[in-house]
């Protein structure tokens, strides 16, 4: 018998935990940047359409798969998917639902530890009096494990360990007493902090506190629709990708949380409530902070240039400086709120990443909650240290690409096919609607069976064969030249090799050679972890056979 007898404390707690799982750093850092780069206000049209035809169906699929698996005593994806398809290989597809979480947690907890550290530095006033270059160089020193302003050797590692210990301890307290309790505190705090900063973001006035633009300039920049961009497949691909990553689907965490819901209880309304809560945080709060405040102080041209490298730079290297334009007290307070909300967004997601591994060990090997939680902490620490120590060689980005991007699409594609075509849409629909507190529109049966898998296939193929510069029109009529961001060119390290061929400085050549080594080493490590987990699943399967516990 499984040692896993846990339950959620309350329905609201479950919804907040699910919303917390979905709400992550990307809501505040990725969404506004994607919107700016992909048609401004017009981005919201493909974004919401993708939410309706891909996001909501995937939420329903994963919630119902989880609840279905839970009825059979499974709380992690290998054996949840195993119960839905006759082919015994399905459980190895389910390995992605554990592997992704461990690999993502390894680097995600590192960013989470930055937010914890920046909360601390905001409180003690480290950024007070620093100019923008000073704040940027603080970040550079921090991630390269340079000199600590606190005098603590290897400060980032200390914060990383503290962050992991905190996650592990909360996980060891159980579902209701740990994960749910944090969600019940973290989500309201996140929304309160977000509302405060959003209010500041949309009420900036040029000439006050050093602002050079009204907030309307930033909001225009973000929301002015460029409808011509709607014809670009790149924009639709970006919208589909954003919906995908923001909902934390394709990871196995939703399945795991939902596996603790009983068969007669609602999942359709719960999924909608958690899903729309995530959208509120992303579209309403996420869009009102980073871009309007940055443009208010730095101007459109500078921010346009900075967003090319993503939102992390703005968040950690620029905002702490900009907050201090509001005065020392408000600057420190805003820093605490900004990094505090990022921390809550991060920890509610990283806790979710721990639960599939814990559920797996409890179900299959009768581990207790506490020992399973501590084993997760140790596993993540060992796998995460390369991202900390070799950050400048691209190990962090490599984990993010394979575990945090490609793997999600692959697993979601497989699970959708399994649910709609192997398990069958008739049985699947019954699972979605069973116990439902809302009327699920019937046309979703068609969407789940045809539209969602096709859209996912398109996202996957679009990432595999991305044409150069995202120019699909040119690729269709001429030779199909792959972009360096395509999966195929990523595997071949084309970008790094081109840079190496063009480099003349011996130091730059050495750095690039090191990067290629570390990138390849990261892939081998991630692959080895996947194989080890697959072997563990095989061992669990053999154990089930011996004990006569096969479904």
């Amino acid at each position, binding site marked *: 018998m499984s040692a896993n007898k846990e339950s959620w404390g*309350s329905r609201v707690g479950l919804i907040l935990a699910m919303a917390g799982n979905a709400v992550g750093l990307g809501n505040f850092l990725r969404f506004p940047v994607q919107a700016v780069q992909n048609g*401004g*206000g017009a981005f*919201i049209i493909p974004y919401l359409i993708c939410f309706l035809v891909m996001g909501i169906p995937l939420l329903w699929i994963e919630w119902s798969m989880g609840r279905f698996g839970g009825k059979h005593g499974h709380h992690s994806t290998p054996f949840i998917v195993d119960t839905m398809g006759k082919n015994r290989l399905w459980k190895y597809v389910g390995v992605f639902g554990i592997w992704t979480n461990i690999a993502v947690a390894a680097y995600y907890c590192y960013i989470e530890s930055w937010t914890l550290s920046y909360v601390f530095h905001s409180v003690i006033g480290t950024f007070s009096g620093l100019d923008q270059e000073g704040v940027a160089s603080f970040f550079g020193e921090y991630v390269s494990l340079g000199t600590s302003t606190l005098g603590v050797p290897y400060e980032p590692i200390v914060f990383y360990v503290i962050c992991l210990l905190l996650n592990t301890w909360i996980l060891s307290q*159980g579902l209701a007493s740990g994960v749910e309790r944090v969600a019940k505190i973290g989500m309201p705090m996140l929304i309160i902090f977000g509302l405060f900063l959003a209010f500041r973001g949309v009420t900036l006035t040029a000439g006050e506190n050093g602002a050079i633009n009204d907030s309307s300039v930033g909001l225009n920049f973000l929301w002015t629709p460029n409808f011509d961009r709607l014809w670009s497949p790149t924009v639709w691909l970006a919208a589909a990708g954003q919906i995908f990553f923001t909902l934390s689907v394709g990871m196995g965490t939703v399945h795991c949380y939902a596996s603790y819901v*009983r068969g007669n209880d609602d999942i359709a309304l719960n999924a909608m409530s958690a899903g*729309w*809560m995530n959208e509120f945080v992303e579209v309403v709060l996420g869009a009102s902070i980073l871009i309007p405040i940055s443009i208010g102080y730095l101007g459109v041209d500078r921010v346009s240039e900075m967003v090319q490298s993503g939102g992390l730079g703005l968040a950690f290297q620029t905002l702490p400086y900009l907050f201090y334009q509001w005065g020392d007290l408000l600057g420190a307070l805003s820093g605490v709120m900004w990094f505090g909300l990022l921390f809550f967004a991060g920890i509610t997601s990283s806790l979710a990443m721990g639960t599939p591994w814990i559920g797996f060990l409890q179900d299959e090997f009768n581990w207790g909650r506490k020992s399973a939680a501590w084993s997760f902490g140790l596993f993540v620490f060992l796998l995460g240290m390369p991202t900390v120590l070799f950050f400048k060689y691209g190990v962090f980005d490599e984990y993010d690409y394979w575990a945090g991007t490609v793997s999600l699409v692959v697993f979601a594609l497989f699970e959708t096919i399994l649910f709609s075509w192997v398990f069958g849409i008739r049985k699947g629909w019954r699972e979605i609607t069973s116990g439902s507190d809302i009327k699920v529109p019937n046309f979703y049966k068609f969407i789940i069976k045809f539209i969602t898998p096709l859209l996912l296939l398109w996202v996957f193929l679009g990432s595999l064969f991305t044409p150069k510069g995202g120019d699909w029109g040119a690729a269709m009529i001429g030779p199909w030249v792959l972009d360096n961001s395509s999966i195929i060119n990523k595997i071949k390290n084309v970008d790094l090799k081109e840079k190496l061929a063009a480099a003349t400085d011996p130091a730059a050549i050495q750095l690039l050679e090191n990067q290629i080594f570390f990138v390849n080493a990261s892939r081998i490590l991630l692959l080895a972890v996947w194989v080890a987990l697959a072997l563990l699943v095989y061992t669990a399967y053999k154990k089930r056979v011996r004990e006569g516990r096969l479904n």
Partner: protein
Amino acid sequence: MNTSALIVMLTTITLVTGLMIFFFIKVMTTPPRPEPDSYLDNDDEPEHREPNK
């Protein structure tokens, strides 16, 4: 703000906030199911009261 940006922003914010509130209120106002349900609050089952034991 320019008119088109304002229209897109307000429409989106109203829609997203409205639906978030609607579904959350729906959850809050739906009567709980008879026990045993999935949740520990008001639970009669002793084994569910102490989930970590």
